[in-house]
C-alpha cells in the first residue's frame, strides 16, 4: 500500500470533475420533478447527449459546439417523453423506462462508426494567474467551463425556484396541477418546458462523460449514472443545494476509492466500489429527516377535465 502516490490537490480537482455528470443530470431532473413530472429516462437522455456531443465534436473539432449539440440532443429526445406523457397522456413511469431503452439503442446505432476515435481535447477555462495560485489554483480554477456551468445552473435553479414568479408557478404546477389549471396556468406547456430543460441538462452530463471524463465513445458508457442522478433527487428532498452536496459526495468518493484501489489499500475492491452509494445514501437520508416531501402532483397525469 502506498498512500503517498495520491496527490491530494489533484485528487480533489478530480473529485470535482467526477461529480459533474451526476450533478448536471440531477439538477435537470430536479426541475422536472418540481414541475410534477417523473422522467425515468435520464439515463437514455444522458447517453444520447453523450453520443451527439461526441459526433459533433469529432466532426466540427470544437467541444463547445459539441456540448451545445449534446444539450440539444437530450432536449429533443425528452420532447418524445413530453409528447407521450403530456399530449398522449401515457403513464410516466412506463414512458420514462421506454425512453431509457430507446436512448441506449439509438446512441449505440448513432455511435457505431465512432468507436475507438479520440475526440479533440476540451481546454480548461483560461483564468490566467488565478490558476497559478498554489493548492487553490488547481482545485478551484483549473477546470473546464462545464464544471463552472454546472455550479451556475445549481445556483440559478435555486434562485429561480425561490425568488421568481416563474419558479413559483413551476412549483405550483408540481404541487397541485388542478388548482394551477383553475387559476389559468398552462400546465402542459410549463411541464413540457421543464422536461426539455431536464433533457438538455442530462445531455450535457452525458457529453461530459464522453468528451472529458473518458474521453472516447463506448456503447452504454454512462453506466447507470442517470439512475444515480434520479435517486439523488429524491434523497436530496428536491432541494438544489442538497443535489450539489449529494453529487459531490458521490462523485468524490467514487474518485477517492479509485485512487485507493490504485494505491493498493488492503480493503476488498467490492467494499470500496460500494462505498459511494452507501455514504451518499446515509448522508442524504439523515439530511432528509426534516419534513420535506415530494411535490404533490409528482408522477400524476394531468387531464384538464372541466
Amino acid at each position, binding site marked *: 500500500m502506498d498512500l503517498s502516490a495520491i496527490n491530494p490537490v489533484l485528487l480533489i480537482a478530480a473529485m470535482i470533475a467526477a461529480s459533474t455528470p451526476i450533478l448536471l443530470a440531477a439538477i435537470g431532473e430536479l426541475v422536472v420533478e418540481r414541475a410534477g413530472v417523473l422522467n425515468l429516462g435520464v439515463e437514455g437522455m444522458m447517453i444520447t447527449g453523450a453520443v451527439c456531443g461526441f459526433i459533433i465534436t469529432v466532426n466540427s473539432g470544437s467541444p463547445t459546439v459539441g456540448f451545445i449539440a449534446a444539450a440539444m440532443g437530450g432536449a429533443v429526445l425528452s420532447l418524445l417523453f413530453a409528447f407521450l406523457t403530456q399530449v398522449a397522456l401515457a403513464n410516466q413511469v412506463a414512458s420514462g423506462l421506454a425512453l431509457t431503452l430507446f436512448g441506449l439503442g439509438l446512441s449505440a446505432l448513432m455511435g457505431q462508426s465512432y468507436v475507438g476515435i479520440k475526440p479533440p481535447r476540451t481546454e480548461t477555462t483560461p483564468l490566467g494567474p488565478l490558476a497559478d495560485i498554489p493548492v487553490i489554483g488547481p482545485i478551484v480554477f483549473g477546470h473546464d467551463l462545464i464544471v463552472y456551468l454546472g455550479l451556475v445552473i445549481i445556483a440559478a435553479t435555486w434562485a429561480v425556484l425561490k425568488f421568481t414568479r416563474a419558479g413559483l408557478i413551476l*412549483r405550483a404546477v408540481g404541487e*397541485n396541477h388542478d388548482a394551477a389549471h383553475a387559476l389559468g396556468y398552462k400546465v402542459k406547456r410549463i411541464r413540457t418546458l421543464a422536461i426539455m430543460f431536464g433533457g438538455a441538462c442530462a445531455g450535457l452530463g452525458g457529453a461530459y462523460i464522453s468528451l472529458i471524463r473518458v474521453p472516447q465513445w463506448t456503447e452504454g458508457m454512462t453506466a447507470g449514472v442517470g439512475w444515480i442522478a434520479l435517486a439523488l433527487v429524491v434523497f436530496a428532498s428536491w432541494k438544489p443545494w442538497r443535489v450539489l452536496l449529494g453529487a459531490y459526495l458521490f462523485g468524490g468518493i467514487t474518485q477517492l476509492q479509485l485512487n485507493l484501489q490504485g494505491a493498493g489499500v488492503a480493503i476488498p475492491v467490492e467494499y470500496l466500489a460500494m462505498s459511494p452509494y452507501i455514504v451518499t445514501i446515509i448522508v442524504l437520508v439523515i439530511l432528509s429527516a426534516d419534513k420535506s416531501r415530494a411535490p*404533490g402532483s409528482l408522477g400524476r397525469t394531468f387531464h384538464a377535465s372541466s
Partner: protein
Amino acid sequence: MSTPLLSINGLTKAYPGVVANDDVSLAIAAGEIHALLGENGAGKSTLVKMIYGLVKPDAGHMEMRGAPFAPTDPRAARGVGVGMVFQHFSLFDALSVAENIALGMETPPPMRTLADQIRAVSETYGLPLSPDRVVGDLSAGERQRVEIIRCLLQEPSLLIMDEPTSVLTPQEVDILFETLRKLSAEGTAILYISHKLEEIRSLCDAATILRGGKVVGTCVPQDTSARDMAEMMVGARLVAPKAQDHSFGGVKLAVKGLSVASPSAFGMSLKDVSFDVQAGEVLGIGGVAGNGQDELLAALSGEVPCAPGMVAFDGRCLSGAGPETRRGMGVLAAPEERLGHAAAPNMSLTENAMLTGAARQGLARRGFLDWAKTRAFAERIIDSFDVRTPGPGNAARSLSGGNLQKFVIGREVLQRPEVLVVNQPTWGVDAAAAAAIRQALLDLAAGGAAVVVISQDLDELMEISDRFAALNEGRLSAPRPTSELDVEQIGLMLGGAHGMEVAHV
C-alpha cells in the same frame, strides 16, 4: 333601469351525452347579491366556469357593463374584475399563504409588499391570516379566507362564491355574511352558489333557480319560503325522513380514551375521544372538516390500529381487529371519499360490492369468489337504493357522485350491520336522494343497529340523530340529546368562530 354589471343571454354548453346549460340567461346589478340555486348536476358549476373563463360556451353571449364579454381563460376574466372562490379550494398545500395569493394575481407586488397588503385586507374584513404560514397547516375556514383575500386584493367588481359555507361553523358563516354584505355595500356584486336555502333567504337579494341545465324560475328569496325554493329546485314535493318510534338496547359500541395519531402529514390526531352508542341509537358527530373526522372513521373501521381497551364492540375489545375482521363481526363503515376510499373507481359495481361484502354476505368461499352471488348482491343494492346506472357491470367512476354515494351507503346498510359508521353520508347528493339515505339510516337504527353519523351538515344531524357530539381539533365533546340543542349551542360546541371577528370598517 341602468345597465346591469353582468348580463348573460342564452348560454348553452353541452358535454357528450348531457346538456349542462341550456339557454341560461340572468342579469346581476352592481352591489347585488345574487343566488344561484340548484341540485347537484343542475349546471351551476358549468355556468360559473363559463363566466370565469374556464369553459367556453357553445352558444349565447355575455356582457360586462354593456360591453361584450367572452373570457378565453381565467386571466381574461380576472382582468375585467371577476373573482372566484372555489368550492374545492384551489390552493397549494406546500406553499405559503402569500405565495398562494401571489399565484392568483395578474401582477403581484414583491412578496414583502404583498404580505403587508394581505395583513391590511385581512384586518379590514375581519379575516385574520398570517401571510407566512404554510397552507397545508391551516383549517378549512382559514383556507377559505386565503381564497377570499386572494380575490379581494384584486378589487373585483363581481365575486363568485361556490358553496362557501359548507366547511364553516355557524359563527364563521355569520362573519362571512357580514364581510359579503359590506362588500355589496361597497358596490361589489356577488354571485352566490349554495343549496342551503335559509342562508340564501338571509343574504341574497335575488335568486335564479336551475334544474337540469335550464332556468326554471327566479324569485326574491326574502319573500319566498325555503320549502317553495326547494320544490322549485327538485321539481317535486319533498318528503322529510321520519324516525319510527323505537327504544334503545344495550351499549353496542364503546369508545374510551381513543387517541391515535393521524396517518397523514396534514391530518388531525384524535385526542382522548370517548362515547357509547346503544343499539337502536343514532349518534351524530358534527364538526368542521379537518377536525379529526377521517381519523375517527379510520379508527372505528379498523384501518388505523388503536391500543387495547379503546374501542369495544358488545364488550369485546377490537384493538387487534382489522377492517375485514370487524366487518365479519358486524362493524361496518362507509368513508367520506367516494372515489378511492369507499369505492375503487375503475372497478365495476359488482367488484366493489365484493370488496366490502365478501365476509358478511358469504361471497367468497375458501379463497374463491362467487361472482353470481356478488352480482345479485350488487343488483339488490341498485334496486333498493335507486342507483341510476345501466347495470352492475359499470365502473364506479362512471356513476355521478350522488348515485355512487347511494351505492356505497346501500352496500353497507344491506349487510345488516350491528354497528354502522358513516362519514358525510349525503355529501354532494341531491335532496331527494339525501332524504332516502337518511331514511335508510333511521330504518337501520329502528331495526336495532347502532349508527354513528359523522357529518358537517348540521341540519342533517339535527334531523336524524338522537344524540349529538362535536369534534373540534381532534377532541370530542360530551354527547347531548339533540332535542335539547339549538343551532347556536351547536356552533359553540364546534369551536365557535375560531378567532374570527366581524368586519369593522
